[in-house]
């Protein structure tokens, strides 16, 4: 079973590396959105420090949502997805492999760049540390939940806008606990409670999202 997972993941990773520009676009989108905020609200470092966790988190959610279109779209167009559906392996496992590869090429770069953006916003070292942990726990959950939306809108006209309408409301708990963890640790409350809830959301998403996304794929390709 692990071999199947690794096989799907490696395939998607190789494809992603061959089209590196897609990965970089998502990353630059994230950086640009975050950099726009100081220009919008003004350069006072106190204000920026206060809004930093929320801004970074919202931008991360938007960036990984933009990348959702690529999760199944190419495989759908060239017919690979139908082959995957016919394979004897459980579809939810294959979906999980694809989502993990997707996270590795969209989520991980965001996590790696986030400390730099945190410094731009004058965040403390401790705050940046918690931001990193919250992103590491939260972005996979976002990819998992997003996979359901991407599977539902597969091949639908206007799917890109539609997917945001479907998945953004479902991201709210991740946003609350992700940004909340940083705020809580900066204000001295301790981020443990937020981070464990974020972890719980990730576990729940790991259990249910691949299954729901697989069901959605079956419906979409029926």
């Amino acid at each position, binding site marked *: 079973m692990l071999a199947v997972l690794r096989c799907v993941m490696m395939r998607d990773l190789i494809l992603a590396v061959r089209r590196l520009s897609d990965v970089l676009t998502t990353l630059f989108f994230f950086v640009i959105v975050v950099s726009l905020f100081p220009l919008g609200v003004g350069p006072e470092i106190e204000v920026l420090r206060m809004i930093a966790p929320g801004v970074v988190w919202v931008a991360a959610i938007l960036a990984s949502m933009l990348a959702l279109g690529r999760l199944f779209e190419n495989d759908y167009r060239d017919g690979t997805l139908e082959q995957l559906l016919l394979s004897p392996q459980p579809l939810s496992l294959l979906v999980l492999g694809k989502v993990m590869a997707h996270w590795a090429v969209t989520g991980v770069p965001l996590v790696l760049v986030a400390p730099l953006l945190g410094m731009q916003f004058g965040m403390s070292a401790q705050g940046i540390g918690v931001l990193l942990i919250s992103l590491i726990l939260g972005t996979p959950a976002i990819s998992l939940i997003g996979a*359901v939306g991407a599977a*539902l*809108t597969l091949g*639908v*006209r*206007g*799917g890109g806008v*539609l997917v945001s*309408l*479907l998945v*953004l*409301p*479902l991201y*709210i*708990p991740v946003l*609350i*606990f992700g940004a*909340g963890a940083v*705020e*809580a640790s900066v204000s001295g*409350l301790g981020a443990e409670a937020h981070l464990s*809830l974020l972890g719980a*959301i990730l576990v729940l998403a790991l259990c*249910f999202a691949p299954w*729901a996304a697989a*069901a*959605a794929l079956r*419906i*979409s390709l*029926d």
Partner: protein
Amino acid sequence: MAFAGINWFKYSSPASFYPVAGKMIPWVASVAVILAVIGLYFSFFVAPTDYQQGEAYRIMFIHVPAAWMSMFIYVVMAGYAAMGLIFNTRLSAMMASSLAPTGALFTFVALWTGALWGKPMWGAWWVWDARLTTELILLFLYIGFMSLEAAIDDPRRASRSSGLLAIVGVVNVPIIYFSVKWWNTLHQGASISFDKAPSMASTMLTAMLLMTFAFWMYTIAMVLYRVRCEILERERHSEWVMALVEERK
């Protein structure tokens, strides 16, 4: 919904449900009108003026029933969607999609009246309270459901996809509610606690329940009417629909 006691599967074929629904609509609609008239009479003439909120509290008689209905309809909709996906019954999928517009309407009414009630009472049109925020998210979920269904051309796939989305949504609503509640308690300064349930005069409760049942009956009438349209649309090539159209001429 209201048809407990009737053997469901006998009527679960669209062709046999169509005339039954047609017969039920006038009755359900009349009950809705009667209940609404009595409910409005109670709301404005029988229920006493609240000594804290004055007359403004009378907004409650539509606000609370609308909020209840918005959540109730979503759960019922997800239930029908699940039935449609599991048993592959066409009628339950049609019920789910017919419920959505009325559910969205009540969600909007709950938000709108909440804002108009909040302004004179707390001095703000909108507060980031868990209930208000969740209600807003619920409106987004309804809109997402309807847009997904409208965006897919194949009716079978449309109802199955949106049905799955409704189920995902119904699992998420409690999670969203509790996370917003948690988030809100951490930002205590900005929020107002509404948890002190006022001890209501019994006439107030009566008025509220009457309005709730009026909304409920209204929903059933609307849904049956929409389901009938849906049935005609999807079965337009079948013989009985053609005969029906012939007959009307």
